[in-house]
């Protein structure tokens, strides 16, 4: 006798499909935005001729990458080599399951949402490590080493900057954290915790390997870092997962500090998307404004500034709560 399929499983599968579509759509929009904004910052039009105002550009790029010759370097472990982009991509999809997009738009409402996101985004480091190790290329290996040390270092201030919010709300549930904040901008945690927000944002940039912290793929010294040897779809998957992690970072930032789906007049997913995209645009803006930092500078910022400031912020918050 076949038991009835549990409703949870159905919701989960539908949710996974929906989040995959969301990730793909976001990647397309972000590729276009990134190139267009880069163009505007350089005072040039950016992609313009492929479709009206270049809107077909990401599709052309995507199809071209699908049509490229697939290549495995000589001497590489081809199983691990092709596993790496998938390990990088898969956790990103899972993270979207717990994000509350709107008051009634959340796939799984779990009370460990934030922990789940922080844990799954950490898996990306493993992907960088495998990609760098199996590529049989010195640039890949150096890029992977940098990626790992950077991610491990920045995980600490990231967690420390998230902790005050958890103490203030008393929950790991992303939905509850969002509903703990009011509808108007002065009721959001960014007002009470500005330092935590800044630290969180800097760490998010470093964790997603975005410029000015894109040392794992620094073009000037490491060719393309850990994905030097990946052509076609492997490269496209790494690209996709980078954008997916950017979106996750922006989502978490919007929920923790900007009130999530809460907004003036009517709450809803529109406020959430607007906040996420504002954060993403700031990330793109930072990328095209600042030069890349050196590696010692990167670690100095982390160990000498961000961690002490985050601990200080945490202690002050605890003191205020205790009083």
């Amino acid at each position: 006798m076949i038991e009835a399929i549990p409703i949870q499983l159905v919701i989960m599968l539908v949710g996974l499909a929906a989040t995959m579509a969301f990730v793909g759509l976001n990647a397309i929009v972000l590729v276009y935005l990134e190139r267009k904004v880069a163009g505007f910052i350089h005072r040039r039009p950016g992609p313009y001729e492929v479709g009206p105002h270049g809107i077909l550009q990401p599709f052309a790029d995507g199809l071209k990458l699908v049509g490229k010759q697939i290549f495995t370097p000589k001497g590489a472990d081809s199983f691990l080599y092709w596993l790496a982009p998938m390990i990088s991509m898969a956790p990103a999809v899972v993270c979207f399951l717990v994000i509350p997009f709107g008051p009634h738009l959340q796939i799984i409402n779990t009370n460990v949402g934030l922990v789940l996101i922080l844990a799954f985004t950490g898996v990306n480091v493993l992907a960088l490590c495998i990609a760098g190790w199996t590529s049989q290329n010195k640039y890949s290996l150096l890029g992977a080493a940098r990626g790992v040390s950077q991610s491990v270092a920045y995980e600490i201030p990231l967690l420390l900057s998230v902790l005050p919010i958890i103490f203030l709300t008393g929950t790991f549930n992303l939905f509850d954290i969002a509903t703990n904040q009011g509808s108007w901008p002065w009721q959001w945690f960014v007002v009470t915790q500005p330092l935590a927000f800044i630290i969180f944002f800097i760490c998010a940039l470093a964790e997603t390997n975005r410029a000015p912290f894109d040392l794992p793929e620094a073009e000037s010294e490491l060719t393309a870092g850990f994905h030097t040897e990946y052509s076609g779809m492997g490269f496209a998957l790494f690209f996709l997962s980078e954008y997916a992690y950017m979106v996750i970072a922006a989502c978490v930032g919007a929920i923790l500090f900007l009130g999530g789906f809460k907004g003036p007049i009517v709450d809803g997913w529109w406020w959430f998307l607007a906040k996420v995209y504002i954060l993403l645009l700031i990330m793109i803006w930072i990328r095209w404004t600042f030069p890349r930092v050196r590696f010692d500078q990167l670690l100095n910022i982390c160990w000498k500034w961000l961690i002490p400031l985050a601990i200080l912020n945490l202690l002050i918050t605890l003191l205020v709560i205790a009083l």
Partner: protein
Amino acid sequence: MAQENQGLTFPFADTTTDEPIVDIAPVRKILDICRAMSLWPMTFGLACCAIEMMGFGMARFDSARFGAEVFRPSPRQSDLMIVAGTISRKMAPLVVRLYEQMPGPKWVIAMGNCAISGGPFVYKDQYGIVEGVDTIIPVDVYVPGCPPRPEGLLEGLFHVQKKITGKRWWPLPQTAEAN
């Protein structure tokens, strides 16, 4: 010393690439259009012509309009090799290796007189310069000039697109139409 037997010639690059897995006419046509519209060049310059290649990507000429501004540093991710400059004999094996490292389908633009034929460096008994990049790798489009202006390189890009899809996509400049 004898001038012969110094190993100054280079073998021609290995041009084999994998056959496409799916090779149906309509799919191929769409893919070709996509390839033509997103030709990512390799970050790779050999001499003075590379300065004009940088101009080709910058604000005034902006190759981004045609989807060709993503200069990829890794040959594995690039589609177009712009040989911009003089190829010295020391550099020639590296040019060949970079070409062989690019996954197919790939195209090559020989930019400037040096890359086309050796340019100003061709004289009797010269020993340091490869006279024309087409002696070591296959070339699709030649852009003459010393150096060619960025408009010239853009025109070269359009010719690569024409070569891929069999159709010119953008209008000709007015002076060319008048002739």
